[in-house]
């Protein structure tokens, strides 16, 4: 991808110099489940090496937005460009795009019939065509990064929730993705296990990974995010630097949400 296409016809051939193209660019996205409109015209983008945290009350559509970005959810209308490639174009090879986007789920979704190593190797071999030796080397390297080298031969059922989630992150990283999506990655964890997972995510952010993080961890958003997006009722209410959104929000809806999250016992 190089050169600049000034033609604004919005074709899938849109190309531009890498620095100018966002990794994720969502335009006027809507998503309906039956009569229920969960996303009502979202504009959203994540630049290369940027860490964007999406916060908001449950049911606000933030997970749906994230799942649309690698088309696990089919958008109803609108446009989604991944590094300039329109993923809603029927001619786009979706698998080609997805291998560049790592995804981490709330429920981990490790493959229970495979060992930790197997989980990290299966897609490397099937999708990237890496050899057994090569994919095992990558897998062991990623496992070491998340601090779980000694669990290489364990099955997911033998790991704690926090360990499973770190394996899931390592599994996504084994594909050498160019960006990562986190869908409430710590919401299913016992409180004492959250820290380990957040530490791995923080390291990843500091290493320059492009990240879209749907989260309820305000502390993580405040200290790691470059930008915070607040969503409610299917729209982006407000976005900006974490200090501004979390400490000095302009919109009343944002203020209301933050006061509920930060002082759950009041009023």
């Amino acid at each position: 991808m190089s050169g600049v296409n000034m033609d604004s016809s919005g074709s899938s051939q849109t190309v531009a110099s890498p620095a100018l193209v966002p990794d994720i660019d969502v335009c006027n996205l809507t998503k309906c489940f039956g009569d229920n409109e969960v996303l009502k015209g979202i504009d959203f983008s994540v630049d290369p090496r940027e860490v964007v945290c999406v916060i908001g009350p449950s049911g606000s559509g933030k997970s749906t937005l994230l799942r649309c970005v690698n088309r696990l959810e089919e958008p109803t209308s609108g446009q989604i460009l991944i590094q300039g490639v329109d993923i809603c174009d029927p001619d786009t090879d979706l698998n080609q795009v997805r291998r560049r986007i790592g995804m981490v789920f709330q429920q981990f979704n490790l493959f229970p019939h495979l060992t930790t190593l197997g989980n990290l190797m299966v897609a490397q071999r099937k999708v990237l065509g890496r050899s057994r030796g090569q994919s095992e080397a990558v897998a062991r390297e990623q496992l070491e990064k998340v601090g779980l080298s000694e669990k290489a031969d364990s099955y997911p059922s033998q790991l704690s929730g926090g360990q499973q989630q770190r394996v899931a992150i390592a599994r996504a990283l084994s594909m050498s993705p160019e960006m990562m999506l986190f869908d409430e990655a710590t919401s299913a964890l016992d409180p004492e296990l959250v820290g380990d997972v957040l530490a791995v995510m923080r390291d990843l952010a500091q290493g320059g990974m492009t990240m879209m993080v749907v989260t309820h961890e305000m502390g993580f958003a405040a200290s790691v995010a470059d930008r915070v997006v607040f969503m409610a009722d299917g729209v982006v209410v407000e976005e900006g630097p974490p200090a501004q959104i979390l400490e000095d929000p302009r919109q009343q809806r944002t203020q209301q949400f933050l006061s509920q999250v930060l002082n759950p016992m009041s009023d």
Partner: protein
Amino acid sequence: MTRQRRNLALQWLAFAAFLGAVVGFLWATVDWPVVRRLFFSGEVLADQFPTMITEGVRNTLVYTLIGFGGGLVFGLIAALMRRSAIPPARVLALAYVDIMRSLPALLVIIIVGFGLPIAFGESLPDWANSNFAAGGFALALVAGAYLAETIRSGLEAVPKGQTEAARSLGMKSGQTTFTIVLPQAFRIIIPPLTNEFILLLKDSSLISVLGIVVGQRELTTIGRQFSNSTGNYTPLIAAALCYVGITLPLTFLVRKLEKRANAGSR
């Protein structure tokens, strides 16, 4: 004596009385010397038992394995077709499953066993007329319909997140099905699969309607033939013991597997 112990003692007493009544009735009414001679003759048993094992047990197992193996293939194809994006494929699979499940296995074996050689005529090689090929194929058709439903339930029992995780890693739909979903589905359905195997084992006795050929007889056929030729029921009892000998270990295995599955370990 506590109330609880008295209660238990009464239950034992009632059971003993029931058992005594049944045994007493049989003792008084059954002609025991005849039963011993015609049902449990050691002489007849010693004479027939080797053939019973080498031909009967062997062929029963062969028919069952052909039927089960073929049934797994048909069932897997039908189960995957039911999830197809192409509507006619789904309809075809549904028709196969529903029609086969509504027919008696005996009828299918007769139609396939006698009908196919006529329908295909010269284009069918000689070996395809044997009971092994025709009967095994018919059994596979019947078993496939039931196995399709079992496999489908297994596929549906694998959480959707597994597919999503695989697809998000860039795996294609087929790769996801065969490397992620199916291995987990089969683990889930091992107990019902074993039950289907046991049912099929007994249905293999129906193949005898296609004609009795020495070397192709299974347990029930051999039992009946020997029984007719000796005028003695001992071969039938021997055949029964053989079925139990094959089935009981499998039943124990299923119970063990079910216990393990219920314990939640995968």
